[in-house]
């Protein structure tokens, strides 16, 4: 197992490098630049700015300096757009926000999704099943860009119970709506995956054997059926978790949370090269880490899998 983890880490390094090179080239190939503005800057002013940010260097040199800065000093450079901030600063402020509401939404989505899916599978074709399937389809057809404004309309404007946006350092009343808006569609997916995989497991031979030898159904479900039926769910959860904690632009935009999801999109629109790179690398590292974690979980859940 240790060997496996080590191998994964070794593979991760070139993967990240490739990610950096590709994002860098892609970004620089987009028309316009960080300092393209409605009033075109006089050439001498532009030259001063480009010199300050090293944009007058050849592309390979810029990329080299950038990677060296990260490796030696963990410095992601200054933001090209938010000139009072460094990218380290920006991520240090935005990431905890998305991490907070993303993790909570993740827990909510997993607990409610797995419960809903399991209940539906166990009571297949009863009203409970129809109800659970109904709820999950309902949640699926209400994507977060519909959920978010709807929630604000109901809970902020009509009922006046919760604030319609802001973060204020993460007080509970500011977290609730973003969590619900983010969690619903994930919950729906998790419920559907759990239900179908559980149905499949319940029909398999070893469950039939367990039933035949007269085990109580509680024991069959918790002891035998649940673990294997969670396998597909877990492979879904790895990337889902990363997507949730690196934020959703919709959630950030509607709730003004200051999270990094919105920042990612805005910095792409602003051609804020250093900020895009910083968030891309963060997302890349997280994705690789959690995929590795999922693989380890796999081995633990399914003894047939060996690395």
């Amino acid at each position: 197992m240790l060997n496996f983890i080590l191998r994964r880490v070794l593979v991760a390094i070139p993967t990240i490098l490739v990610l950096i090179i590709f994002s860098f080239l892609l970004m620089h190939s987009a028309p316009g630049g960080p300092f393209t503005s409605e009033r075109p800057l006089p050439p001498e002013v532009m030259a001063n700015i480009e010199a300050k940010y090293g944009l007058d260097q050849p592309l390979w040199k810029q990329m080299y300096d950038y990677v060296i800065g990260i490796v030696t000093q963990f410095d992601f450079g200054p933001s090209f757009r938010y000139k009072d901030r460094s990218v380290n600063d920006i991520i240090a402020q935005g990431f905890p926000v998305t991490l907070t509401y993303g993790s909570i939404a993740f827990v909510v989505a997993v607990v409610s999704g797995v419960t809903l899916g399991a209940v539906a599978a166990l009571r297949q074709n009863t009203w409970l099943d129809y109800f659970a399937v109904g709820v999950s389809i309902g949640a699926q057809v209400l994507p977060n860009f519909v959920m978010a404004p709807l929630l604000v309309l109901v809970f902020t404007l009509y009922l006046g119970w919760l604030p319609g946006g802001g973060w204020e350092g993460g007080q509970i009343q500011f977290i609730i709506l973003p969590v619900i808006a983010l969690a619903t569609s994930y919950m729906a997916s998790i419920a559907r995956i759990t239900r179908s995989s559980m149905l499949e497991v319940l029909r398999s031979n070893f469950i039939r054997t367990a039933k035949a030898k007269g085990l109580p159904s509680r024991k069959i479900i918790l002891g035998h059926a649940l673990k294997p039926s969670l396998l597909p769910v877990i492979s879904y959860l790895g990337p889902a978790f990363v997507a949730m904690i690196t934020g959703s632009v919709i959630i950030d935009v509607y709730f003004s949370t200051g999270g990094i999801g919105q920042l990612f999109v805005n910095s792409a629109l602003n051609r804020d090269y250093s900020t895009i790179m910083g968030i891309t690398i963060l997302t890349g590292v997280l994705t690789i880490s959690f995929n590795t974690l999922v693989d380890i979980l796999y081995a633990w859940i399914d003894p047939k899998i060996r690395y």
Partner: protein
Amino acid sequence: MRYATTKMTAALLAASFLSGPVLAAGTHPTTGEALADDQTFTYRVLDEHSSVDPQIVEDVSGAEIVRDLFEGLYNQDEDGNLVPGVALSHEVSDDKLTYTFKLRDNAKWSNGEPVTANDFVFAWKRAVNPETASPYAWYMELMSIANGADIIAGEKPVDELGVKAVDDLTLEVTLSQPLPYFPQMVTHSTTFPSPEAVIAEHGADWTKPGNIVSNGAYILTEHVLNERSVRERNEMYWDNENTILDKVVAVVINDENQALTRYMAGELDRTEVPAGQFPRLKEENPDEAINFPRLCNYYYTFNLSDGGPEAFKDVRVRKALAYAVDRNVIVENVLQGGQFPAYTFTPGATAGFEVPEVDYANWSQAERDEKAKELLAEAGYGPDNPLSFDMLYNTSEAHKKIATVMSQMWKQKLGVEATLNNMEWKTFLDVRGKQDFELARGAWCGDYNEASTFLDLVTSPSGYNDGKYSNATVDELMTGARTAENPQENYTQVEMTLAEEMPVIPVYHYAGVYMLNDQLKNWPINNVEQNWYSKNLYKVAE
């Protein structure tokens, strides 16, 4: 018991007098209105500001914050007129090249240090210093300060900038050419003073809350990127006694409909009204929905460069297209926010600008349409040889609506095929800047309240002249206007030439369309540049 109560009341009263401004809970000193206890103003901004460093800031929402945090030589009043800021007055030399500003002796930084002429000298040199790499360095060039352009280009040392502190309270500025509107230009944030010692101490981090020292009515106390920034009363400000608002919060909300919902829920005191919603909101909340003219224009520019379409080189085609646009429909049925149909490039709201009588402005739309049909036929376009071109705008719901309406008008009236093409902002700017378009949207908000801020755009050397219109007479008139006693004549001639040659299609002039809490008073709706200062606002009790 009675004794105790009295004593306590007295103590409380004394405490409230000592601890804070007398005005906070009370009545307005001049109008006598009862003031609200909570003097907090919360407003929506579309996007996070770029910086609060006066010499670095480049966007409108950043400049709004900087105007509260710092104070320049002059401020603007509710109507946009100059009023003393740190400077009390100025004198101009006979050759109009030297301006001497007298500064007030009671201006202080938030750390208690006095504001001196040296702070301005430091800031202005900082703005042109190539090392600062200020995106607004061009503004200092525009101000024509002696040697400014050479310093920015790295051809002269920074110390040779034409600005010096004669003594602590006297600032002398030397210009390279006379500039009648120079005093108006010092209300811009690039010209605000900055604290040398603090910048030296904290470097790039000097604008962070806790580090920042400023000389305006407010200090920055909190800033969370993409969420909000908070500025609070600066007790050291020279006019703190007359400042009523205690706290101003800017909340970043990208989506304007979401912002409107939050306004309706009482979370905001001000937000913009999305296009087309003003009439409904005005009916439901007559005291809160407001609109007023702004110093901005909206137009489409023909690509007149060598690479541009042949058809647009014919003035008859340009005129036909410009005439056939029914601006009243766009303003009254699409935007519905009190915008003004535009027939000239410069908005009528511009100070000292008299709208010239351009011919087609006075025709009826039917007459314009008739003329358009004639001109297009003369130019050789018709059912057998239909005119078709690409119409470029940056991605936005409102721009799309306008482009759709315009192309429909052309199709119905003239049989012209305009293909709509939208692009994301930076790509749009890049493409338009490279003249890789046929007809493209443009808009401009005045940098200062004078017609040249608009008309300079149609001169050949202008960096924003993406249509590459070039007319030597127009260039000459605009150069002449800089030093003319009465530049209006030149402006009239330029506008007349524009109406005759139609290098751009003026569509409308902007209006500010806000939802504004009716408790918040003194919003400067007559200030067309919308240079507002929180220190002049106040909230009345409900």
